[in-house]
């Protein structure tokens, strides 16, 4: 090894390129986020108004406290929306570049699939597939290492939670086959 002993070096060959083109600008994302937040506050505000936001003889109605919070949140979102629309600093800024988004999706999509698989196959099998798949496909780590790590981790988790600590996790056909 060329690296001297007193140094730890970890390379990241897939690192997002700093020159990667912008996928979404900071300004447009800000506008969308504040619009969504405003929409949410209108929705929650309406629901609380419906539940009752006034005063009953014995005190505030259930919707009173949350209704005024929705109003506060709505007002703050409108302010944020205005600030984003008229901001000069946000307009040239990138919220996320193509490369960055690709990397984020590399984690997000497997996580989404993992959650879906957990519903059908149970958590442990799904976690085995997630770890093995992620390590070998995205991390490009040798297949045997990936499979071994995934198996050790999933079985370890099963032993710790389901067997030792009695924390019951969603299970699927494989666990049923072994009688759990």
């Amino acid at each position, binding site marked *: 090894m060329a690296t001297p002993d007193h140094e730890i070096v970890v390379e990241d060959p897939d690192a997002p390129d700093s020159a990667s083109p912008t996928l979404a600008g900071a300004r447009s994302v800000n506008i969308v986020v504040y619009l969504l937040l405003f929409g949410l506050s209108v929705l929650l505000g309406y629901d609380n108004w419906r539940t009752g936001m006034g005063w009953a003889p*014995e005190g505030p109605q259930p919707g009173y406290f*949350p209704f005024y919070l929705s109003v506060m949140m709505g007002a703050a979102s409108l302010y944020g929306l205005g600030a984003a629309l008229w901001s000069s600093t946000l307009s040239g800024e990138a919220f996320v570049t193509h490369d960055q988004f690709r990397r984020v999706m590399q984690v997000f999509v497997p996580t989404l699939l*993992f959650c879906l698989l957990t*519903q059908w196959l149970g958590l442990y099998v799904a976690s085995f597939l997630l770890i093995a798949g992620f390590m070998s496909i995205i991390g490009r780590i040798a297949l045997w290492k990936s499979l071994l790590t995934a198996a050790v981790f999933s079985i370890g988790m099963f032993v710790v939670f389901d067997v030792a600590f009695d*924390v019951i996790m969603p299970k699927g056909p494989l666990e049923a086959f072994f009688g759990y």
Partner: protein
Amino acid sequence: MEAFGLLFHGFTVLLTGKTLVLMVVGLVLGIFVGVLPGLGGPNGVAILLPLTFTMDPTSAIVMLSCIYWGALFGGAITSILFNIPGEAWSVATTFDGYPMAQNGQAAEALTAAFTSSFIGSLTAVLLITFLAPGIASFALRFGPPEFFAVYLLTFCSFVGLGREEKHKTIISMALGLLLAGVGMDTVSGTLRMTFEFSELLRGINFLVAVIGLFGISEILLTMEERLALRGHAASISLRVVLRVWRDLPRYAMTLFRSSVIGCWLGITPGGAIAASFMGYNLAKRFSKDKESFGKGRIEGVFAPETAAHASGTAALLPMLALGIPGSGTAAILLGGLMVWGLNPGPLLFVEHKDFVWGLIASMYLGNVVGLVIVLTTVPVFAAILRVPFAAIAPMIVVSCAIGAFAIQNAMFDIWLMLVFGVVGYVFKKVGIPLAPFTLALVLGSRTEDSFRLAMIGAEGDLRVFWSNWLVGSITTLAIVLLFWPAIGAVLTRARGLLRPARGAA
């Protein structure tokens, strides 16, 4: 003194083989998450929380707080050896810590960091030991209006004193309080904001949100960045430790100053970051040799580390005495308390003596054991960074999912966690702070209950919040803090107007 007796009792609760093992396990796990890229105090505690669900409350809190100490220690390792601050409050540690490592003084820098963390925490724990029982017994006289005023003070100080833009803090806080209200209303039994989804009847669990916001979103953010790193390996020999310790008295003033700053800022919400920078800047200002700061001066490691840890620990004081967490991590610990059916607040000191004093005793013991562990095992932990992120990321995802599911045995919560992961990612990138959200979500229902009880008691008269000197002064202080930036601007202006007048006279 009564505190000594109770503390001694706490140590006897603690000194069982099982608790000590849990303590070491917690510390090691904590250092581990502190060293890993993209994880830190609050994330680590949130992810590892489910491990403790089946334990009794005392063991669980001991383990959790040890994870927290461990994460704090671990953050210093990456700041010094790799110039990567694990948390915002270790940024100031990198100023002099990393240059020291480059000069071949990594061992000295690490020893200084660990020692000062220890000193900072110890000062804050002493403060907790002697102050918390007093505050708690004082707070026992609080009624609903007083409690609401204290909650109001917490939220207002976040808005008024926070460094983020005000509207972002308000959104984060209002959203947290709103989500806390989802589900069955505890006073009237009416359903609120459920939109006829049966899954929402249970409400939105605080810990599920936290695991998503801090765990999942942090992985997404970490992936965005370049993960390559280059740093120094170091091992600490006893000789270096003794040499650094022998020089400690020379820095007594720096250590003392930083401890005081840390304790003070830790009690007010969100203070650890400010404390570390303030500690560093003050050490620099009072130093005779200002130029050498930033080039690898050991004082530049002592000052911010002491302040950050004093404040991180002092954040537990309002949590224990009043049920109000002083930091994001304290909020998560508070969420844990509620899972074990403990009601945080002044009554804790009366009803659960074993628990409270066991926890305080574990702060002393955890810091001592932690110091020994980090001093002896630094090379092992630094090597963890060699483990590829592609192996760590899916394991963290699985741990998060286990955590989210275990809380209420609901598959819906795993989906909710994923949603909060995306929300956390977007919020962090847009600059909406997550700490007020966390705090609001955990305090939400108690804030609302105290408000409604106060209103019912006063028959809807808002003057109840000024009905006696105590509640009146807390409420007024809250409003002053809320408008603090505006008041500060007016004061500066007034001073500016007075100055020429004085000059003319």
